[in-house]
């Protein structure tokens, strides 16, 4: 005999089997696909980092050749940025954006599936380079003309084509998220009632739409340089290598916020939940996020303070960079304001979110030191920078996403991740992280450049490098425990079944079952306030303290439903859920076959032809397939 809750936890809603997952257009399933794929790439990228750290354990080690080292650090960066952090953010956005807004799916469900498959196939294409003569080895930033040198070696073609296609996937999903946030919100869900996570997803979608075209142009030019004598970046022919850096960083700097803003959104959901207080200064947090996004477009040249710009330009970009610290500081103070005066429960999601705040303060402050241009000319391209961006993207972004996994895991599976394992994971990760990246500040200030496969004795770098390597293995241990926790909780079904609302949550996802039904909401909710679900459970007394409302204290929640003639509001028969379709995956496959062909020109033109044919088949099938009704 199984209870209803158990049945739900064992069986995800929707069809079963591989085919059901390939053809799914359900935003929740696509979100889970993103999550599993990103987690897999996270372990691959982590192994690459461990190999790099092992080589650097001591001076002049020979664990890796220079050739292997250059491939591994390039792939580590590429993987972590494009195949881990961006897709894990996409996983959360896919799964929760519609639910947080009170919608039944994203605006374009099949486009959503297309984005995922194109991302997956592009990632696989880039990784196939390892068995096809070597992976990209020109650093993830691919500075020309190093990246356009040696055109007979196709490694950097895998990089330029792979990134190009990942960009297409990102633009498609960004357009989708923007349309979702603008048109799919439940009645009463005004823009300033959207949860901060939804807001940050929206800002990120705009950042991607406006920044990706810049790097797309750069990548096309580089591809032409490499394959057809394009000469865009060939100095000897009047081309300009610095043009690449501008095009790359006009994308690359907003990209940093693409990676971290969704994590800030998650933290802004977790802190209020576990402090049992609303987010302090909600409109300020939202506008600060948007301001970071805007100003983020005006600071790209702080990645180029040693490249030879004039001092006035350098001063301008330095000051613009400092200005970013203001909205960032606002966020930090608001997060502290949120827990101030609260009643803090230190569950694992909360621990990771608090660690996010602390680590992000370090990463933010070291970022301000880069805005100090003369000082940056010493720190640029050293391990100090490596330390800085890992404090932002690991201690920051990754900790935020891990917090999100612990927070929302019960919503995905119905089961709570083990708290004891979670706390071991947390402390090992926090200690390992600081052991790894803390010493890199010192190494960089002591003159150790990044992207160097060996270093000599006698410069005082050996001890701190050894510490950093030990820290890296500590991080491995931490995340193996995390993996075991997930396997144990979900796949071995040993996790505690906790029902719909284990954290006494504030936002709409906690009002529906765990895992949610295919259609999310039996009836579309009507929203009256920010943190609407909390306000259905709690009122405030005259002192402003939360008071549990009697009618819901006992159990079943009665969420107010939309009434009236709109068929959106009715449950059951009338719900329009999109039909499964394999055409998005087919179109994505066609594009990637096309991309693979472009890597191996001129014979690859055959593959380009086949790829175009498959893509057209996918796109036409997609637009012509009939709408079938489910239910």
């Amino acid at each position, binding site marked *: 005999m199984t209870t209803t809750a158990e049945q739900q936890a064992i069986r995800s809603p929707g069809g079963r089997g591989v085919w059901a997952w390939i053809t799914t257009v359900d935003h929740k399933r696509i979100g889970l696909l993103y999550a599993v794929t990103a987690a897999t790439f996270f372990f691959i990228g982590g192994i690459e980092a461990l190999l790099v750290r092992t080589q650097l354990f001591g001076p002049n080690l020979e664990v890796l050749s220079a050739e292997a080292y250059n491939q591994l650090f390039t792939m580590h960066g590429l993987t972590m940025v494009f195949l881990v952090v961006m897709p894990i953010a996409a996983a959360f956005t896919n799964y929760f954006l519609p639910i947080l807004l009170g919608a039944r799916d994203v605006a374009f469900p099949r486009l959503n599936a297309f984005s995922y498959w194109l991302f997956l196939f592009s990632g696989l294409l880039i990784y196939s380079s390892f068995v096809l003569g070597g992976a990209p080895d020109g650093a993830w930033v691919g500075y020309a003309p190093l990246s356009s040198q*040696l055109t007979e070696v196709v490694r950097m073609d895998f990089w330029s084509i792979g990134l190009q296609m990942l960009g297409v996937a990102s633009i498609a999903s960004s357009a989708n998220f923007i349309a979702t946030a603008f048109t799919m919100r439940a009645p009463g869900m005004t823009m300033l009632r959207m949860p901060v996570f939804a807001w940050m997803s929206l800002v990120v979608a705009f950042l991607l739409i406006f920044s990706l075209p810049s790097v797309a142009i750069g990548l096309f030019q580089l591809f032409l340089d490499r394959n057809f004598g394009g000469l865009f970046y060939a100095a*000897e022919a009047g081309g300009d290598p610095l043009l690449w850096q501008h095009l790359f960083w006009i994308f690359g700097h907003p990209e940093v916020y693409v990676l971290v803003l969704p994590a800030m959104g998650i933290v802004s959901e977790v802190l209020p939940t576990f402090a049992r207080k609303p987010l302090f200064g909600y409109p300020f947090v939202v506008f600060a996020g948007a301001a970071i996004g805007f100003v983020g477009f005006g600071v790209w040249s702080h990645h180029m303070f040693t490249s030879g710009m004039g001092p006035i330009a350098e001063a301008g970009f330095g000051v613009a960079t400092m200005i970013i610290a203001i909205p960032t500081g606002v966020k930090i*103070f608001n997060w502290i304001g949120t827990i101030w005066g609260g009643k803090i429960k230190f569950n694992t999601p909360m621990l990771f979110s608090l660690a996010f705040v602390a680590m992000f303060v370090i990463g933010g402050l070291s970022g*301000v030191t880069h805005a100090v241009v003369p000082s940056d000319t010493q720190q640029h391209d050293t391990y100090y920078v490596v330390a800085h961006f890992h404090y932002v993207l690991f201690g920051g972004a990754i900790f935020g996403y891990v917090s999100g996994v612990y927070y929302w895991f019960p919503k995905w599976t119905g089961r709570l991740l083990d708290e004891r394992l979670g706390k071991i994971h947390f402390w090992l990760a926090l200690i390992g992280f600081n052991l790894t990246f803390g010493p890199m500040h010192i190494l960089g200030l002591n003159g150790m450049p990044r992207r160097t496969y060996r270093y000599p004795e006698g410069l005082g770098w050996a001890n701190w490098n050894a510490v950093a390597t030990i820290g890296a293995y500590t991080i491995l241990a931490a995340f193996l425990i995390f993996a075991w926790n997930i396997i144990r909780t979900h796949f071995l079904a040993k996790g505690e079944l906790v029902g719909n609302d284990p954290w006494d949550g504030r936002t709409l996802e906690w009002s529906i079952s765990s895992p949610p039904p295919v259609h999310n909401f039996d009836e579309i909710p009507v929203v009256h306030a920010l943190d609407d679900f909390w306000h259905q459970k709690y009122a405030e007394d005259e002192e402003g303290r939360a008071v549990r409302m009697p009618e819901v204290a006992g159990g079943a929640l009665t969420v107010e439903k939309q009434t009236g003639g709109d068929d959106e509001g009715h449950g059951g028969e009338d719900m329009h859920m999109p039909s499964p379709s394999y055409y998005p995956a087919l179109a994505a496959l066609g594009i990637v076959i096309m991309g693979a062909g472009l890597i191996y020109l001129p014979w690859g033109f055959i593959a380009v032809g086949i790829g175009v044919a498959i893509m057209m088949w996918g796109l036409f099938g997609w637009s012509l397939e009939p709408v079938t009704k489910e239910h």
Partner: protein
Amino acid sequence: MPFAAILAACSGSGSQTALEPQGPIGRDIDGLWDLVLMLATGVFIFVMLLLVWAMWRYRERPGDLSEPKQIHGNPVIELGGVVFSVVLLTIITIPTVRSLLDIRSEPVGPDVLQIQVTGHQWWWEFEYINEIAPDGRTLITANELHIPAGVSVNLTMTSADVIHSFWVPALNGKRDVVPGRTSKLTLIADEPTPDGEPIPGQCAEFCGLAHADMRIKLHVHTAADYATWVQEQLAPSVQPAGGSALEGGWLTFSALCTTCHQVTLEDIEGELVTYGPERHIVANDITFRSSFGPNLTHLFSRGTFGSGTFTLDADHLSEWIDNPQKLKPMDPDRNDLAEGFVYGMPDLGLDPVEIAEVVALLETWR
């Protein structure tokens, strides 16, 4: 392992840290760093105290059934946060801009030592355009830079292939060396460095296989010692006479090595002859040397080879000539001298006797 032993051990030599500046520009930057570090540490401690205090004070206590006050925000605190940030950032910005304009100003005057730098995969070529021999040759050397103490040195730099970055942290920040462009960097050193203990630096922009092994050694001299060094470097070395013990080495050298390396020698008749290709590139209307390999006229006046990576002595050099790629990761199979592409020194296939002869010859070029 025997391999590691040949890598130039830097023990006893200067450190590559930016935190112990050895010149006024380095000190200016370091002072700015100290200011920012102090402020950042203060902010960090303040924020962490707030955070940790809030976590401790407002933790959930067993048995406490009360609910917290639902505070939604406070515009005064928001404004305070903004003002606080703005004030701190202004304190940093003013000296930043002042120092920036300062360190980016190019030194002028007759006393300025002008050096042209060409970055190569994976070594540095230096041409002292004001140090000229009677026959019109400029002073040319590689990887080890010699400058007088207290003098402004104006580096004008370009690259022969990909982007590099010239960086000697004790004296100044790094400056990228970009193909097709020129960039400037000023070096001023306080004190002469002790013999055999140059200030280390290295390429700081990823430039391919041997990026880690593209190092710089900077020797600082008194004015007199510098003048002596200049005279020694401008003088030619000696070409061995036919029948001399070094003739075998010269036959091999002149047949193979001069394909890429230049040497200026005095032959038996006392004539100056320069062997090896003379190549230039032009960037920003300035002509730079762009050799295939370092000039070897005074090879053994240097303490290191392989771009400052290996200690120079007969044994190490023999090992290098036997198989350069064993010591330094390079890609000479792709060299195309006609097109001007060099990705490192090839294995010349010399037998041990030939190698010993070549090394014996090179040892005389000091």
